[in-house]
């Protein structure tokens, strides 16, 4: 099963894509993914229910979040109400250690994203802050990466023995599915996604050259 683990809808301040339009694009363009995770910026979207869309388009549509720490941006999968009460998702000066600890406490997974990106990627902050504790997975393929940012991410992941995921970081419809993650498990819920990530049975994929 292939999921794009990093996408933004109009629920994010800079997102320009409606979820329905992502579904239509995936279907009409035969984008080779089975679903996607909406990781809205600095928030968790409790109010949206995409189950009807998921059923209509036969896609898995899950929700996560993208928060901001001193190591850059971090995806959080398996967000629950108690987890959102552990720290302020809108705070752009979160401590990665606090995010990781809260995620572990509430059965979620924290994954630094676009780690090769300047200023908002983990690699750029390791020299200053050291190698963080508790990180096991990073996003090695990001659809919004420029230049060698994905190479930097992969090199860091290899050096620190991190596993890699892929996500498009789509903010507009045509970018959905540019990068994704293949799982050996079937995933239909956030709980199953967390379990699959913890199992280690996945690999990062990029379709950027196909899309170019």
């Amino acid at each position: 099963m292939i999921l794009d683990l990093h996408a933004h809808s109009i629920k994010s301040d800079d997102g320009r894509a409606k979820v329905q339009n992502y579904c239509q694009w995936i279907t009409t363009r035969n984008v080779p993914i089975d679903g996607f995770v909406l990781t809205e910026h600095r928030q968790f979207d409790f109010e949206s229910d995409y189950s009807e869309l998921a059923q209509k388009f036969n896609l898995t549509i899950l929700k996560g979040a993208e928060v901001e720490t001193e190591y850059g941006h971090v995806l959080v999968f398996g967000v629950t109400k108690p987890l959102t009460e552990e720290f302020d998702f809108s705070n752009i000066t979160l401590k990665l250690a606090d995010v990781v600890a809260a995620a572990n406490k509430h059965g979620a997974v924290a994954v630094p994203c676009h780690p090769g990106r300047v200023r908002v990627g983990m690699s750029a902050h390791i020299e200053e802050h050291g190698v963080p504790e508790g990180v096991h997975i990073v996003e090695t393929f990001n659809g919004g990466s420029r230049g060698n940012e994905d190479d930097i991410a992969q090199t860091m992941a290899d050096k620190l023995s991190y596993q890699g995921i892929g996500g498009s970081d789509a903010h507009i419809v045509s970018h959905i599915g540019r990068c994704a993650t293949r799982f050996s498990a079937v995933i239909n819920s956030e709980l199953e996604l967390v379990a699959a990530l913890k199992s280690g049975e996945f690999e990062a994929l990029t379709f950027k050259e196909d899309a170019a």
Partner: protein
Amino acid sequence: MSAPLDVEALKEEFLFKVFDEKTFSFSGQALADYAIACGETASRYTDPADADFQAPPTIATSLQPGQRMPKGFPKVAGLGMDAGKAVSPKAPIRPDVELLGKSHMQDIYTKTGRSGRMVFFVIRMEVFDPSGTEVASADTSVVIREKPSV
């Protein structure tokens, strides 16, 4: 280099306080000209003789307050850019009706990106007809890219 903005203090001082009121009124022909310039083709927007003639929903985004920022709002160091507009139409806007636009700071928030910290200011104009009915609101976002510290 100037110190980073204290966003929480700004929010405390400026959010949700009306800082500008301005009236607007448009003739039917002016609304039709606007609609045609926007590429509208529906006669309710382009033909003042249409029984349901009204302004296109986007018109609220073109209304400009007399004063763009609240009095006393600090000058912000950094590169300022338009960060987009959002309109919420709520009732038809008819020609030759005096509209009252009230502006306030709706939100101030920050995010980080490749270029460093960015501060967003969201100014909302709520537009009312003479009966006091809100006919639309329009958000104008401005982003300031603060100079990176590294």
